[in-house]
């Protein structure tokens, strides 16, 4: 057997083996891909519009978008004052209160808070405690958030995230987009 022949033979075996690897990898993809959210789930993730006219200062509703709950809370003047009074060294993830409080564009007074209702620690829904700056307390592992959703203490590492949202009118809130009229 010449060495040329040996080389040719080895080439065939190696190439065949490589093709086998490519084939298995290609075949594996549909099996992995099917785990991702399907087209219907993705399409259902579009913005939801909610009538919030019934929400009074000091109360909140829970709204579902993409299968997850969101707090839509209207703050009282006392709560706004308490939130504004939180100092940087009290916060783990410092953020000014006015960035987290919003409202309809044509309203001068901003007193709305729209944040995720799942604790940023491991996903439980915090309960209202309302004592001083403390707003929400997570029953699972004890994280405490103020009423703008900023983490004050406990195991949660960051503030409750704000979903994209916009007030289409004074009474209608859209969660899932930050551009009105979409």
């Amino acid at each position, binding site marked *: 057997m010449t060495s040329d022949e040996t080389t040719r033979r080895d080439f065939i075996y190696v190439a065949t083996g490589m093709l086998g690897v490519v084939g298995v990898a290609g075949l594996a993809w549909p099996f992995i891909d*099917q785990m991702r959210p399907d087209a219907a789930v993705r399409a259902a993730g579009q913005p939801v519009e909610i009538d919030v006219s019934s929400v009074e200062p000091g109360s909140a509703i829970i709204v579902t978008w993409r299968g997850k709950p969101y707090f839509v809370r209207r703050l009282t003047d006392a709560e706004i004052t308490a939130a504004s009074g939180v100092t940087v060294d009290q916060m783990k993830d410092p953020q000014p209160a006015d960035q987290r409080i919003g409202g309809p564009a044509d309203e001068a007074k901003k007193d709305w808070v729209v944040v995720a209702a799942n604790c940023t620690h491991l996903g439980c829904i915090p309960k209202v405690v309302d004592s001083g700056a403390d707003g929400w307390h997570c029953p699972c592992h004890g994280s405490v958030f103020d009423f703008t959703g900023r983490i004050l203490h406990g195991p949660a590492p960051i503030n409750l995230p704000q979903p994209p949202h916009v007030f289409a009118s004074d009474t209608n809130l859209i969660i899932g987009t930050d551009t009105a009229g979409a």
Partner: protein
Amino acid sequence: MSSLEHHGTYTPTSGIGKWIDARMPLPRLMYDSFVAYPVPRNLNYAYTFGGILSLMLVAQILTGVVLAMHYTSDTGLAFTSVENIMRDVNHGWLLRYMHANGASFFFFAVYLHIFRGMYYGSYKAPRELLWILGCIIYLLMMATGFMGYVLPWGQMSFWGATVITGFFTAFPVIGDPIQQFLLGGYAVDNATLNRFFSLHYLLPFMIAGVVVLHVWALHVTGQTNPTGIEVKSKTDTVAFTPYATVKDSFAMMVFFAIFAYFIFYLPNYLGHPDNYTEANALVTPAHIVPEWYFLPFYAILRGITFNIGPIDSKLGGVLAMFGSIAVLFVLPWLDTSKVRSADYRPWYKLFFWIFVADAIFLGWLGSKPAEGVYTSLAQIATAYYFIFFLIILPVLGLIEKPRRLPNSITEAVLERNRASGAQQVTGSAAASPENRG
């Protein structure tokens, strides 16, 4: 492995290899079973279906598991969940078509595997248990295939389930209670769908278990081969790896190419349009037909249109159908010939090929409406089916004069190659692959 000689033995070289080998010699078992295991050197491509079937079983389980992630076994949602798979799940259409056509190709391969076993007398002593285990796998496959066909909850699913569970009502007294027990109600309904889903998920793993026994039994006796003569010396065999592995792999890829052709270009060719209509308990489709792989048995079932003594035609049809499968289990004792391979049995060879044609013919008849000349033809074909097993096989073994058998596999190979003048390998290497190193 008494009479079989191994090609090399397992000797772990690395430290980890030795450590594992002393504690749980799984690598040794794998090496002995799939590397050094000796296979007859004269196996042809008809012997590749065992490997193909193993792979098909794995493929069906894999696609089935991922489909079950999206399927809902509720009569109100089953059809919709399947359509969700087809339309919205990423690559869902591919996975479903793979699974649905995979069932057909699984049966296609198993039929070729069975016919190969019949042609080369693979069921004869000492391989009776191996054959019976195979028959059990086939039965489990039929149950799995039938229940899987019900899950999409189309019209054929529903009416197929109604008809097949109706078989049991043929038995007097106990028939109706058995049917209600199987259905979990008075008709095919939610309880039926749920238990069929559960069992359809379970049975493939039972099949896998019996496959392990099947392979175990095979590795005790060794494979048959086209001559039907047992392995006598090391020169009769080659090592499983690389010889059988590369040959099986090639056969698998050719098989998969045909399989892929159906998945991508003819995905609904083997299905029935009526199953794209959601199940409706008030409307029966014009022609109820089972999946193609059940058609021969369906033809036998419908062929019995007459009463046989105290047995009415309905029970007779059901008994004939069950009998046509049961007869496979006793095949090792029906064939009285001492010669295994049909290559050396001219008459058996002829009747075997008629049997194959008869089985295909029965399948075609099963797809036709049960009326007029089709029924008569089905009766003739059914008669031959049973005559083949119950009369021809026992009698032929006693009166047939077989051709001269070669002394060994090696002799048969060399004789044939000399005769055809093909592929001469020089020197002693021809006789013993081991000398080549």
